[in-house]
């Protein structure tokens, strides 16, 4: 488990990319303060997913508008799913992430 950052490190409705155990992970905070984590690069053309637009839990890649549901990683308008990582807030409002291999 990795304590990534305080929730406030990410503005509501945006994402940021973090380096977690040598791996780049995109972490998102929705406007209702839910947090999600996915692979950092778009599987299509490696666009920076953290720079995408969020609508609820829908993520839109900034390069070619491929879309996914952040909660499941399932594609909404894309041809493959995103890798997602379990992530939650601890009692101090910090984002805690588990890499799948841990």
């Amino acid at each position, binding site marked *: 488990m990795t304590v990534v950052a305080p929730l406030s490190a990410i503005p509501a*409705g*945006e994402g940021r*990319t973090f380096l977690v155990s040598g791996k780049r992970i995109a972490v998102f905070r929705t406007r209702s303060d839910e947090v999600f984590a996915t692979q950092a690069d778009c599987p299509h053309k490696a666009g920076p997913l953290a720079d995408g*637009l*969020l609508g609820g839990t829908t993520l839109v890649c900034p390069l070619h508008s491929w879309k996914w549901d952040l909660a499941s990683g399932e594609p909404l308008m894309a041809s493959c799913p995103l890798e997602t990582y379990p992530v939650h807030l601890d009692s101090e409002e910090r984002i805690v992430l588990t890499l799948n291999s841990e």
Partner: protein
Amino acid sequence: MPSKQNLVVIGNGMAGARAVEEILARGGRDLFNITMFGDEPYGNYNRILLSNVLNGSQEESEIFLNPLEWYRENGIILHVGVYAESILRRSKCVLGCDGTIEPYDKLIVATGSQSFVPPLEGLTLPDGRYKPGVFVFRTLDDCREIAEYARGRGRAAVIGGGLLGLEAARGLQNFGVKVDVIQFAPYLMNQQLDPQAAAILKTIMERMGVGVLLGKNTTAVLGEEAVSGLRFADDTSLGCDMVVIAAGIKPNAEIAARCGLSVQRAILVDNQMRSIDDPEIYAVGECAQHRGNVYGLVAPLWEQAKVLADHITGHKPDAAYHGSKIATKLKVMGVEVAAMGITEAADERDEIVQFTEPKKGTYKKLIIRDGHLAGAILLGDISKAAYLMQAFDRGTPLPEDRLSLLFDIGAPAKQVTVQELPPDAQICNCNGVNKAAILACVNGGCHSPKAVMEKTRAGMGCGSCKSMVTEIVEWACDGKLEEDPSVHYYVPGVPLTKPDLIKACREQNLKSVSAVFQVLAGGKEDAASKPGLASLLNTIWAGEYVDERDARFINDRVHANIQKDGTFSVIPQIPGGVTTPDQLRRIADAAEKYNAPMVKLTGGQRIDILGIKKEDLPNIWRDLDMPSGYAYAKRYRTCKSCVGTDLCRFGVGDSTSLAIKIEQHLQGIDAPAKLKLATAGCPRNCSEAMVKDVGAVAVEGGRWEIYVGGAAGSHVRKGDVLCVVDSHEDVLKYTARFIQYYRENAKYLERTYGFVERIGIEKIRSVIVGDSEGIASRLDDAINESIAAYKDPWKEAYNPVTPNQFSSLLPVLQ
């Protein structure tokens, strides 16, 4: 009335069902008792659309053509799930596998075809079944099994690089598996394409993550109990968890051969689609061979079914089928392809007209023989396909100007094109719907494209003709068009038109994007709607707008244009294209300091420093110490200019200082789409002002013509003259007023060329110049308020507005 004859149809696929539909349309219900055998346990469905079911773009229920009720309603007995075992010609009856015996007077064999499966080692288990992981792709059940097996698998191979194979590959990608296409021929889709077109397609597919192996002869399926890979004749192998075989089709003609009918590749038929051996037995579709040809496409099948029906019902006893010219229009892996006739020149008499732009995936090739089209391949841009397919089909002579065959240069408006099509022009090649049928449907009361498509099935096949069907319906409705309301919404996520949305925001004091979603969209956020709403709210509220940064596209969050590698391009403001040695020095130093891989002059007379990392943006802005040029936003971008009167020997007006004034006045103004302006010092138009969103052109006598709605990008349009004024101040006034009117009334992303055409220049002129609606001073006040709210966003270099605004990679806490 004579007693009815028994008509038995073997096969309930597209050919069998279509033949029956055509027979019913000719009063066949009064002539025949119709009985059909279908070995699939369903009604009749559109096999062409199976790939859509596999790739998830259509539901199974959407591809059914005739549900089981249809058979009952038309008095047809359908033996569902019953395979016809044999035809007994002497006793004139058909035996079903469940013991059914159906006597016939007339018989139609429409058994279609099956997947051709090459004899591969290890294809089956000892009990003869396919090894788990081996599939063909032919039926709805195949489609279901593939989908079920693919989930959670790592890698799939498709044997066959033809159309079906590529569609299967596309479908498989949807399940997240890595797909490789194995093609025996040296290039893809060798039936329809030439090597050059196929090479472009291959590149596109590889970009989409599909591996392509060419010239590979598969010899064995590896794996003990289930597929684990493939081996090829060159002794290489490929690991995979499943394999889909799409290597072609094999007509189902066995039942005909066993009862003594002549069969070569398929059942031999005459021009009336009857077996050459037995006048009571017809064959239609993929199981029929006519003049040596077996057609695996749907359009010839429709033609055959019509001739068969005309003949069997006596409707037109002399109806005859003379073969089909094959022209196809389809979408492969998202790429539009149209192909017809031959793919290579046969001899030096054949003239080849060719255009290629591999980077954009565009390829066009025509083969012309004696002034007539003998073949064509269009890839990427198929805008000329309708015309070419018609010229090919009818053998009409081609115009001398070959260029116009490949491109729409100065072509008449689309409506004219639609209007000019003859009534029998086939619009939907999947479902065989011509223009006359669409017109009849409109005249019958269907007044929306959707209703017409549902009724006629035009556009319900591959979908590639949808825009054309829409155009015809729009033209035919002539003002009576009923539309789906959502096309009028300003953004898809809020069900209001732009005027209603503006009104609601003003009345309910909605000043932020989240407030709009909360109040007007039931609390449901829509990502794609956010930037459009942000732009509109900024227009409405100017300085009072509550700016939520997550509603902005990334470019507007970091004030630079994102590039394909995630770096950004930085373009400082250079008003009027006039710079100084000092500015140039700073730009050069900054480019070096931040390792810009490219420095480029832009079309808007500015300098672009490309390849800047996100975290360097604030630093480079500080070093440049120049304002943002806004070359990344749906806003006022730039106003280019010629040299003007200072030094040019032709100049009649001072265009340079006018451009600088315009830029300082309108910098950063947001709009539904980007705004590119120009000023020209004389009508020679060196700065291309007549093809800008707004352009001012000096004419003799100290006057300026103001052009609006020009474009020279993906769309080219000469602007319309809004008015002629005699001072810089008036150019500024009318330009700003027009832009405010555009901001308030244009749809999101609607450029001025579309806006001006939609509203009409007369109307715009009367509002902006004649003040016909009495809103001129309000428009002036509104834009002045936005101008007053201008802030150079690059000043955020000194105080970022969101946490980690410019970070591309952050470390973790612990």
